[in-house]
């Protein structure tokens, strides 16, 4: 492990040094605090890098790293006032190019986000992509992510934040019941093709995560929000475990285990049983579980508790029954009941 992380770590530090020098060249005098804020790193990391830059340079004509061959900084200003001022420069004149993979990562990211309201201008994305390609050391590698469909809901969420008004929408919970929910939108998140809204839910008086594709009839209310994004620190995880969660033991095909990684609590045991992985998943209720397990037929099976097995069996059997010969289409059945 150390063998793998060591060079990565050093590469990151090198990239930081090569990026910091041109920034410092363009800023005649900058405080450690400002530089740290700009790069989004702790101040000690800036100080460490500046100390190294200050004693680095080229071997020079004598191959002895003489004074004029090295960078120099105003050391007193640095040590006493936490101010950075480069007083002698060597070798570096400008920012480095992106690597092919770095440019590819940015280009693919832009493409993925191209449906966001912020990206309304397609030409701007095309020109940005062309600029990244020109700024890469070689042709960006061929990696792409399909533009994700974030529907007009995102534009509405954005507008509600801009106005500072609560958003309301119909939301189906996993039990299939629809409810009107009033929410202070805090952040829009995505995982691959799935989009979520995280917000303060007035109906539940708690932070909640909503799937955008489960929301319908969204509208902006006249009620002002009571929670703004800058006042709330959102947990990193989209779905927080709760003490009320149900713990279910399942067997899953090893290849499919990563697909349900989000449901497996940290520290859950994984044992092999007949070529399958036996582990536990955490769910808020069995209605969510039955949908998850039914979407992995032959791949994941509930072991216990018995009640969970029964809920899954009933759900699948009810689904299968709709295909049995002579069964009336659902709409007719509905009218009859």
């Amino acid at each position, binding site marked *: 492990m150390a063998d793998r992380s060591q060079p990565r770590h050093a590469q990151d530090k090198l990239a930081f040094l090569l990026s910091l020098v041109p920034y410092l060249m363009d800023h005649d005098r900058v405080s450690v605090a400002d530089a740290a804020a700009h790069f989004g790193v702790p101040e000690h990391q800036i100080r460490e890098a500046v100390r190294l830059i200050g004693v*680095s340079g080229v071997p020079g004509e004598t191959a002895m*790293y003489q004074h004029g061959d090295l960078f120099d900084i105003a050391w007193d200003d640095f040590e006493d006032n936490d101010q950075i001022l480069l007083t002698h420069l060597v070798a570096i004149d400008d920012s480095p190019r992106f690597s092919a993979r770095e440019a590819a990562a940015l280009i693919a990211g832009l493409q993925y986000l191209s449906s966001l309201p912020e990206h309304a201008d397609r030409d701007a994305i095309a020109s940005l992509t062309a600029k990244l390609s020109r700024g890469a050391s070689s042709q960006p590698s061929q990696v792409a992510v399909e533009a994700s469909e974030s529907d007009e809901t995102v534009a509405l969420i954005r507008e509600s934040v801009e106005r500072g008004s609560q958003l309301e929408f119909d939301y189906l919970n996993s039990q299939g019941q629809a409810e009107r929910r009033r929410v202070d939108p805090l952040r829009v998140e995505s995982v691959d093709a799935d989009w979520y809204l995280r917000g303060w839910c007035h109906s539940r008086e708690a932070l909640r995560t909503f799937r955008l594709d489960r929301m319908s009839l969204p509208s902006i209310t006249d009620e002002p929000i009571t929670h703004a994004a800058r006042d709330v620190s959102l947990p990193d995880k989209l779905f927080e475990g709760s003490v009320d969660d149900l713990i279910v033991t399942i067997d899953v095909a090893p290849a499919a285990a990563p697909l349900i990684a989000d449901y497996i609590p940290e520290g859950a045991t994984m044992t092999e049983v007949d070529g399958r992985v036996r582990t536990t998943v955490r769910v808020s209720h069995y209605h969510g579980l039955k949908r998850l397990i039914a979407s992995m037929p032959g791949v994941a099976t509930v072991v216990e508790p018995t009640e969970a097995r029964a809920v899954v069996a009933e759900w699948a059997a009810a689904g299968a029954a709709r295909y049995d010969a002579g069964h009336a289409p659902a709409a007719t059945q509905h009218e009859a009941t």
Partner: protein
Amino acid sequence: MPTASSSPRVPVEERLFSLVLALLATDSGLTKNEILSTVQGYRQKYAHSGDNSNLERQFERDKDDIRDLGVPLETIESPGQAGNNQNLRYRIPRGEYELPADVRFSPDETTLLNLAAMVWREGSLSGESRRAILKLRSLGVSTTEPVLGYAPRVRVRESAFDPLSSALEKRQYVRFSYLKPGDREATVRRVAPLALVQHQGRWHLYADDPEAGVTKTFLLRRIVSQVTTTNQTFPAPSADQTERALAELDEVWNAHTAIVQVEPGSDAATRLGKRRGTGVAASGALELHYSDINIFADELAGFGPEVLVLAPGDLRDAVHQRLQRTAADHG
């Protein structure tokens, strides 16, 4: 690692930084011997009379690490010494190292690029996007505060992604076992990787199959073996491979249409109704597009009795069988 105990240890990043500075500063290039004997971090370990093979190996690894960052470290032959490896000279040509003067970004563009980098905050491309952002910040442009905060994320969970993306960049043939749905046994494929694309949330490899003489699309999650990279390379393909791959996947997506009845007001009605390209037939049933019958059947089975597949017949049977299987497995 054996180090000369008499001299203080030079941190790796200081050695790499000193190497980049030394090679940027030289027009005619430095020989390996000049580098090892004079550059900070090497010179401390250099034996003036003796074996420097450890140090030479170190230099080889450092070169790879530096090139990996997009630094164009090049090799030139000494004049009149063609073919003499000992006299190869190394340098970093400034024009290819520096970001071209016309590549600068506005605050709005910088904000967008930060968001684009955030997409990769976990997994294979996280290091790349982190370093790309460092270089972007090097330009000193401040970002604008977005109205609405975003935390976008694309995941790469398939272990095949890393070796494939590396082979893609180096244009090397790869070999792997692929399990086609419906087949009992995986078959070994040898292909030239052209692009990696995520379509409908799933990663695909777009590749040339030289034996069949066609390009094919492989789902990464159906690659069931390690990916072996071969030493055999192929010529650079045209730059539009990702567009072609996505267009082909879209074509397949559009070509498959299912007619599905959903329970009004159910989770299936809301979610499937919001799916990309979904239409509503005169009967009220949904017309849904899909790429892969097996994957779509799994997805539909998850909706249990909320969904009834009317057509096509093979999808209907596939969903029915899946539900029976799940019911039996839990009976």
